[in-house]
């Protein structure tokens, strides 16, 4: 397959930069696969997993909300608030975060804002665990 350039940018740094063959992301309207020379395309990404094919092998990454932007020449930029490859995820930390968020959600006294934050954190923790266990 023809390779094309992908950059994954997070607030702290350029997380990934290199040639890949295929990327599959879940956008807010459904899964989308992108190959080389895709038409210019911009979509919003929710919390989810992303599959990238590098030299014939898939790598899985857990991402937080952001956008994907396919440029004029097919070069793709993924802009997300956080991104982790599945083999780099700290499973025990994600489990602790999941438990803390669940406790927060079951507490009836929390404010609406705290409830939303806890829900977001729970989603993120579950997403990390999903990505880490992806076969």
């Amino acid at each position, binding site marked *: 397959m023809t390779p094309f350039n992908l950059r994954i940018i997070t*607030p702290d740094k350029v997380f990934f930069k290199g040639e890949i063959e295929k990327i599959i992301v879940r956008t*807010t309207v459904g899964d*989308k696969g992108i190959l080389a020379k895709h038409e*210019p395309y*911009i979509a*919003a990404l929710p919390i989810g997993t992303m599959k990238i094919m590098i030299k014939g092998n898939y790598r899985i990454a857990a991402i937080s909300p952001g956008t994907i932007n396919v440029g004029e020449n097919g070069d793709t930029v993924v802009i997300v608030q956080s991104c982790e490859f599945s083999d780099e995820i700290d499973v025990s930390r994600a489990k602790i975060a999941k438990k803390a968020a669940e406790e927060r959600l079951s507490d009836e006294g929390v404010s609406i804002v705290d409830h939303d934050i806890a829900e977001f954190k729970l989603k993120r923790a579950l997403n990390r665990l999903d990505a880490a266990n992806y076969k």
Partner: protein
Amino acid sequence: MASGNMKVIKRRIKSVGSTMQITKAMELVASSKLRRAKKKANDSKPFFNAQSLILSEIVQTKHIETVFTRKREVDSAEAKRLFIVIAGDRGLAGGYNSNLFKLVVAAHEGQELPKIIAVGKKAAEFFGKRGYDVVSKYIGLAENVKNAYCADIANTAVNLFKNGDVDEVTMFYTEFVSSMVQKATDMPVLPLEIKAHEPGKHIIPITYDPSPEAVFNRVVPTFIMSMVQCAVTESYASEQCARRIAMESASDNAEEMIDKLSLLYNRARQEKITNEINEIVGGANAL
């Protein structure tokens, strides 16, 4: 008399010397922190640039008017403002904090006091003391930027703006022009003004999922967050740089002072010896 004077001068030399040790140490600390701060400031730029590119591409495709871009129809003297002020946690950094505060104060002259989001202990103290409405303050954020806090600042600003509690949001920070020049700057945040990227260029059709407006509205909060983050990291680099320069000149001044005092000390010592010889000679002659 002479010996008493010598003691005083000696004590001064010692105290200036120990001050110099401190300023020298602070200079070294600031220059090593500066290197890290500069790297951080550069690392947070790509995220901001990538997002502003998306926004400008959307604006190029079609005219977007959303809650974030709409200008409020209010008299400028009566507009309710929110200022995000990014200053330091510590002093002894030359004019770093005071230049910024001067700019902030000048910016609302003759208008109602703005609401303030204060980043840095100095900003919180300055505006707290002067009776401003400090909505929230973040102390110790600049040294170790977490994007959760930047998101918090952005959300606070966006919510106040959306609810109509404020009509304008402006951010004040210190721009890192070069290692010699840091400039206090203001930057309008809301309502957003996005310029079309390369106006006049033919428009390449871009497919949007779900729609240009939806993507635009989703990007804006994170865009503002990264705006805050860039400003915080850049200000921090400026702070370290300003401190390094201030401490460098303080050390230079101390050195100069020690030189002058040593000269005075030697002169007093010489005077004392001359006096003693005179006394001995006078005494010998009297015999």
